[in-house]
């Protein structure tokens, strides 16, 4: 009980101070900021480099979601449909990749491969999207596989087969409609991770393809209020995504 309360305090304190700081007029060597202002947000909205970064991040998130769907849904289905033990092991390794391979190392690999003359893609937005795909794919696969097991999809498919449905009908009538909820909540998780991703983007983004978090780091060296406002924007996006994800997951479970 005590641990939970202290922990929630630990959880909330940084967020609360960020929120306060973003609407405080001045905050230097005082416990809390003084004066109320919306000036920092106005500055942020007018800042051309933040505008560009925000737009870049949105593009990357959108492309990551679309491509992830096209790649992850078939892959998760193939893993699920394979009776082999090897498929399950491959899935497990895939879900461990993001932890076992530091993004810093992967990003360094990107620099080595894609700064060459044969594959000169470093700095392009497409390489950024590819990196976000690799980083987020395991999360989506994990969510889809868990849902497939929860739905007992294999049993439903077997019934459909005995009722006369060939593979294409089963996939379109049974598999895809049943997965739509978990796919949606999975994509929201992917968006949340993608929008906040810093570690690999920071290494491979070009000057014109900086994402929001990279630009945010620059802001930390400037005015406190401005940095707070810029951080809060990112935070709100992540919280919105998480809430939307939780609600979809809940709706999916309910029916």
């Amino acid at each position: 009980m005590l641990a939970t309360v202290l922990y929630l305090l630990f959880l909330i304190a940084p967020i609360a101070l960020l929120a306060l700081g973003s609407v405080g007029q001045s905050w230097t060597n005082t416990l809390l900021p003084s004066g109320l202002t919306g000036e920092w947000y106005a500055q942020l909205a007018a800042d051309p480099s933040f505008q560009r970064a925000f737009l870049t991040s949105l593009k990357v998130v959108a492309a990551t979601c679309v491509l992830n769907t096209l790649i992850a849904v078939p892959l998760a289905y193939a893993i699920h449909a394979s009776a082999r033990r090897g498929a399950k092991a491959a899935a497990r390794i895939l879900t461990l990749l993001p932890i076992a391979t530091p993004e810093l190392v992967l990003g360094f690999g990107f620099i080595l491969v894609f700064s060459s003359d044969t594959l000169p893609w470093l700095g392009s937005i497409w390489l950024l999207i590819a990196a976000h795909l690799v980083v987020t794919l395991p999360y989506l696969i994990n969510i889809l596989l868990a849902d497939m097991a929860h739905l007992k999809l294999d049993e439903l498919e077997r019934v459909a087969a005995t009722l006369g449905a060939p593979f294409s009908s089963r996939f379109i009538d049974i598999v895809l409609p049943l997965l739509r909820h978990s796919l949606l909540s999975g994509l929201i998780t992917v968006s949340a991770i993608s929008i906040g991703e810093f570690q690999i983007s920071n290494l491979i983004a070009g000057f014109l393809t900086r994402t929001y978090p990279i630009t945010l780091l620059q802001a930390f060296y400037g005015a406190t209020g401005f940095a707070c406002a810029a951080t809060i924007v990112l935070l709100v996006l992540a919280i919105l995504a998480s809430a939307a994800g939780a609600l979809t997951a809940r709706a999916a479970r309910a029916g």
Partner: protein
Amino acid sequence: MSVRFENVSFRYPGGTGGVFDIDLEIATGELLAVIGPSGSGKSTLLKLLSGFAVPDTGRILVDGRDVTRLPPHERALGVVFQSYALFPHMSLWRNVAYPLKVRKIAKKERRARALDALARVGLADFAERAPPSLSGGQQQRVALARALVFSPRALLLDEPLSALDASLRNDLRDEIVRVQRGAGIATLHVTHDQEEALSMGDRVAVMHAGRLVQVAKPRELYDRPLNRTVAAFVGHANLWPGVVEAAGRVGTPLGLLACDTTGFANGAQVTVLARPEAVQPLAELPNASRPNVFYGLVNADRFLGAQRRCDLEVGSGIVRIETTIRTAIHAVSIPPEAIRLLPPDSTASQNPAHTGKPS
């Protein structure tokens, strides 16, 4: 609309499990119940027939057509699974209409036929409901309607009642038999519940270690089991080891028993079977000379309501009794005609002299 297994064997990769040398025929309109302990291969039989496994050897024929290598969706067999497996994202009528949809039947006719099928299982009013809002018994009724709506060549029931409450089970048993009779369809019913098999099956097949041990009508199976395995698995049984001492005389742990020994030579090892309800409990040793009367000591006495189940110590053996009398029991009489001699275990499984044809 018949089903035939011809010398079918299937072994699971990397294991010893599977089914071996299966010869079996289910006639049109017949309900064949398959029972056996878990791991005996009864579910594998169903997998092979429904097309989720391909046998190593042998053929499977449905209506005389070889379906051994046909994928499941081309076999046109109705399967009802233990877990109902209704599609959660479709209303009940859409669930039932699904096999018609994949057969490209127009929506109007689909709906009409689905509603008709739902009416036959008493759920016409539920057509627009979603599956999760139904009870288990109702869901299983829908699954039955769905499995039959496209007039399949045969019906496969995979432990359809085992997920239901005991009170629901009896109702649904009758319902399944009624609908199956109405459809006049060859049916393979896999179950681990012997009471269910005996009450529902036209014939019952007993499986053990991947082999068919005996296929017979329920009464024959109960009264004349082929060996110890069948006798022990179907119903309750007194099973004593014995040796034929002379014609009409068998030595057992209880003492010498008089019974028919036709077919067994003197000195042959046998298993002696007597059903507990055929054993007559006695209050005291009778004066008149009756055969097979033994004095005994009750060492367990269980009151079960309609019945009473007693274990009586007789000699160095135990006699199980099922009776309705409530008075004290001090002796038993085992009528010679209630006794059957079975070959001892070792030879039993090697002579599967079962009758694979419907009688």
